[in-house]
Structure formats: structure tokens, C-alpha cells
């Protein structure tokens, strides 16, 4: 799963960067193509508390991630690029980062 998260992070991060710096605002189609991977990640996260996060915090994180997913879904149906960028760049990416950074830290430790 680690590799999948890393790959998903790189893909969504690139879309968000394109939106911010290259004015490539049409993020609907590229995100649409990543929906199966996003769903897989969300399910994986919701399935169990894999990292021993404090229970209350984990529940809040679960709820917030569901809100992010709902916003992504609304944005896709309304073709709302602003909401989609917001949900991706300041929602989903924050979650993905948690694991990518964790992996990077573990790799650094191994070194």
C-alpha cells in the first residue's frame, strides 16, 4: 500500500501544482482518472487505526476525510474546480502526506 500512497500523492500533488502555478485549472478530468486510487486509500484509512492514533483524534480524522471525499464527489458532479482543488490540495494531500512523510522518516532512520 505504501507504494500506492506515494504514487497517489505524487499524482494529486502534480495536479494541485499545475492548478496553482501553471493556471491549469481543468482538474476534473485528471482527478476523475484517479478516483479508484483515492477510494482505495480512503477505504484503507477508514478500515482500521493502523498507526495507533489516539481514538478520538482518529474518529475526527475519519469524519474529516469523509467530508473531503464528499466535497470531491460534489465538485465532480458540479464541475466545480475551486472546490475540487480545495478538497485535494488542502484536504486529501494532508492525509497522504502523513504516510509519505512517515515513510521518508523511516527510510532516513534505516540509513
Amino acid at each position, binding site marked *: 500500500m505504501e507504494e500506492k500512497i506515494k504514487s497517489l500523492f505524487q499524482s494529486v500533488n502534480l495536479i494541485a501544482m499545475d*492548478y*496553482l*502555478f*501553471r*493556471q491549469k*485549472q481543468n482538474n476534473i478530468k485528471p482527478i476523475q482518472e484517479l478516483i479508484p486510487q483515492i477510494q482505495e486509500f480512503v477505504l484503507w484509512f477508514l478500515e482500521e487505526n493502523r498507526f495507533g492514533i489516539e481514538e478520538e483524534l482518529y474518529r475526527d480524522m475519519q469524519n474529516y476525510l469523509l467530508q473531503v471525499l464528499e*466535497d470531491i464527489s460534489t465538485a465532480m458532479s*458540479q*464541475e*466545480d*474546480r*475551486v*472546490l475540487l*482543488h*480545495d*478538497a485535494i*490540495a*488542502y*484536504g486529501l494531500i494532508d492525509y497522504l502526506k502523513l504516510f509519505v512523510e512517515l515513510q521518508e522518516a523511516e527510510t532516513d532512520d534505516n540509513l
Partner: protein
Amino acid sequence: MTIYEENLKALSADYPQMDRLIEEAKENLEPELEIIEETSYDGETIIKVQKEDRICYLNGKRNTKEPAEKWIESLGTLETNAPVFLMGLGNPSYLKELVEQTEKRLMIIVYEPSFQIFQYFLEHIPIHRWMEKHLIVFWVKGLKGMEDAVMKNLIGRILRFETIPFSRRLISPNYDILFPEEALAFIKMMRDVTNNELTQYNTQMLFSTVAVQNLLDNIKYLCDGYKTVQLAQVIPDDIPGIVVAAGPSLNKNIKELKKAKGKAFIIAVDTAIKPLLAEGIIPDMFAMVDGRKPVMLVKKEGAKEIPLVATITSSSEVMNYHTGMKFFYNEGSVIMDRILMKQDFHYGTVDTGGSVATSAFSLLYKIGLPCVILVGQDLAYTGNKSHADGTFNDVMKEEDTKNYIMVEGNIEKEVPTIANLKMYLDWYGNYIESAQKADKNFRVINATEGGAKIRNTEVMTLHDAIEQECKREVNIQECLQKLSPMLNEESRKWAVEYINSFPDKFLALEKEAKRAKRLYQKLATICNKKNIDVKEYKSVLKKIEKSVKKVEGNDMYQLVNDTMVNARYILLREQFHYENTVQKEGKELARKGILYMENAAKMAALFGEYTREYTCIKETPTEEENINLEETTC
């Protein structure tokens, strides 16, 4: 005072009456969308808009500011007075960041397609400080006087060739979703203006030298020539005009034109002359604008006597070959204006539209004909050919058009075309629209039996168009014979003297340019010193200003300037570039000034020699002048 009231005050201070226009719109415009307020996760008020069955956010609910901050970062360095075009005020962060993060004064053009969003913006965001810092133009759809056509003019005035590299643009996110037509029109306007500017630059680069040479060769023809404005005096205003262009479809209905002869005012483009004469059809006039048109295109028995309407910069080779009446119109040339307006101020204009056929079309409209019929005006590669058979070759070869732009056809569903023809196509559509707004009875029939569909025209076969419109007999040549040349004897004498003074004028220009160069050298010396002598610096600048004014005031300067297209644009772009210190700025000014004036002096010397050899009119003196000359000699 509320934010809204303060904003209205600030707007009306810069744009008188804008407060009234806003109040009027507030009362009269029907709401077309619903603005829904929400609070973002960081406590800011954000909005989403419901338009028909779609709801879209205009600001992010998790992070309202970062997209605007990053946009500003991505803009790079903005030069003073650089034009920034921004569509959409729904997320005011974009304008706010632009205004607050940029210290240099910018020219910001904000286009808001929704009056309701503009009103919401005025009610919530104080703008008077922003307007003090930058020049901000608010263009709001629905406000009186802010129609699309006017906006195109505004963009055209701001987005010039020299400002294009400094300009920036942004369609605020979701505006292209909520206002797709307006966003597309906005992008198209900017694209069209940019394309026009680039085309004009490239054309100038391509033709600058040949254009000046042609002008200097052709200027003598003004002495016995006619003005297009005179045509309105003799051409009846109840007959149609026919523009015969040389598109590939001309071969389909060229024979029909015989029936129109003597019943319409027929103007052919230069390239259509040969196929017309081959069919035994002599047009009433032919038109030429191209500076490089080879004479072989019109060299055919009977061609040289046909009256000609031409630009002064068009091919001197053809002009010298031609012996018939020559008609001219104002083209913005200083020396031409002096002659055209010597006798009276009615010089007449023709809107060029970029091609010879569009110019001929505009001429027919301007002389007041009620209906214009277009023939052979394909503006496309009908049958994959660029021109009619019998123009450049007896049979034109087919081109590979698979990568060409496809446009709606006149007869066929789609036809291939290229960028410049597409530009003429758009020009026709817009021009006819404006003409019909000014004169509701003005009609244009597209009798090109093929090619691209031209907006605002009636599509008809040439046979039907002639049957319907060409009813009255008219002898155009007899009409034209009633005209006298535009200059009477006295004015003509003046014009000859004026033309013969060109070598002296070039000499004066050369001397003044050399003087200006010396002054720029002095400026460089002052700026190279460790401590700049401000008094001396200012004094030299003043002298430079005077000298440059003298250079620019010389009638011949325009010709010199026109041949130095690149240098001119470099200087024009300079106005957007500022150095940190007066010393650095002075050095840069001197460097460019020396180079420019050096070249200007060289060109003036070159043209001086050329005019002495080729432009001056050496006329045989009349008998009376001979006697006077003999008496003086005695």
C-alpha cells in the same frame, strides 16, 4: 459611509458617471444568479454561486488565500504600467494580492461578467486605496457603454505589440464554468488583438523597406491622381457594388459576371484581372495593396488602362506599368496627407481589413453603395486550391490541407483555411455587423459559390444576385470621366515642389539626428562619472528633448522610422522598463538613443540619395515657363 458608498465615490472620481451607471443597472437588471455566503474553515466569508442548476464555489473553503498568492508568484516580475487582465471578482483575493503585493504601478483591467457579483464585491471590499495605488479599470457586463465591441477597442488600445510581453492574464477559477460564453469571448478578444498586433508587426517587418521604397517611387502619381472620396460624387448610389476576389470558386461563376457589366460598379482585386480579361470581362476598377505584387499578375492587354485604386505603398512595378486613372486614399502617411489635403480636407479613408479584397469591399461601402456582392471571396482553400485557375498559374495545384483550420462553409459543411484568411473572415463578419448597425439597409450578398461562410451576409448564386440587384443601366467609365484630378494646377505645382524638396528634408533630418546622437553621447559621459552633475544632466535631457522633437517634426521622419521597425518597438518597450538609479537609467537611455539616432541618420542619408535619383519630378517646362527662364537668363 458604507463600503459600497465609499467605493462608488472612488469609482466616480476616476470614471465620472460610473456611480450613476451602477445605480441604473441595480434598478434595471434582472438577477441571473444567486450568491450564497458561507464561512470558510478559517472563519472568512466566502461565496458560492448558483446559476441555473449548477452551484460552484468562487473561493476555497479550506484555504481561501493560497491560490491567489501562488498566482502572484507565478506572474514573475511585473513591469511598471504592465497591463494585467483579470476576469472575475467573485474571489477578490486575486485582485487583492495583485494590488497589495505589487509595488510598481500596474494597469489592471478587471472584467466582471456578472453585475450581481460586482455589486456584492462593491458592498464588501473597500477599493479606494487600491485605486490610488494602481490604474484599475472595471469593465462590468450589463453597465451601459460596456458592450463587448467597446471592450475589444479597449483591449486593442492597451494590448499593443510592445506591451504584449509584459501583459498577464487570468480567468478566475470557475468563471469559465459559470460564464463559458463570456470567458470564451474574453479570451478570443485578447487572442484576436494579440494576433492582429503580431501580424501587423510581421507585415511591417516584411514590407517596411519595400513599402517606403514604393512610397517614394509612387508619390509622384498623387500629382495627377484622384481621391477615393471623389467616387461618391459620380457613382450612382442606387446600384450594387461587386467585389471580384481571386479565390478558387471564381472559376465556377466568372462567366456570369458579364451580365453584371454596365449594371453595377465592379472592382476586381489585382490577382483576378487576368482570369477576368481572359473571359472578356473588363472590371470598372481594380484594386491593389500589396507592395510586392509582381507585374506579371496584371500584365495582359487591356489591363493597364483600367482605373486603379491603390495604396501608395503598393507595388511600384505595377503602378509604373499602369497608365489609367489612379485613385488613392489616406493611409496615415504624413507626406501623403500633406498632398491629399492640399486642396481640401476630404481625403477619404478605406478600412483595410488586411487584404486587397477587404479594402475594395470597404471602399464600396464607404462611397455609399447600398448593396455589395462578393464573388470569388472564398477565404478558404475550396477544392484544396489557394486561388482561381488562371491567376498565378493556368491551373492551380492542389495543396495538402489536412492540417489546416476547418471553418463552416458557404456551400460545403466545412472548408480548410489558414490563419490570415480566418482573420479576414472574422473581419468581414464584424465589419458588416457594424456597417449594418450604422445603416440598416446596407446588404452584403455572398455570391461566392464555395469557400467559407461569412457572417451577416446573404448567400446566393451570382446568377440570382445579378437578377435581383443589377437592374439599372450605368456606364461607370462615363461617370469616372466626369472627375478632375484631385489637385488643381496651383496645388499640383505646389505638390511637385514639395516632392522635389524631399532630398533637402532628408538632409536636414540627417543633420538633426546626428546632433541628437552627439547629445546622447554627452548624456552617457555625464552618467559614466562617479558623481552625477544633476544640473548638467537635466540640461542635456532638455536639449535631447528639443532635438528629438525636431527630428520627429520632420516630414521625412515617418519614413525613416517605418524602416526601423525593430528599433521602434525596442524604444516603445523601454517605457515599461525602469532602472534602479537615475544614473543607470540615463546610461541605458543614452545607449539606445545613440544607436537609434545613428541608424536614423544613416537611413536619412540613404533616402536622401534615393529621392534625388528616383523621386524628384523632372518636368519639361511649359512654353510660358521657358520664356520666363530665358528672360531671367538674359
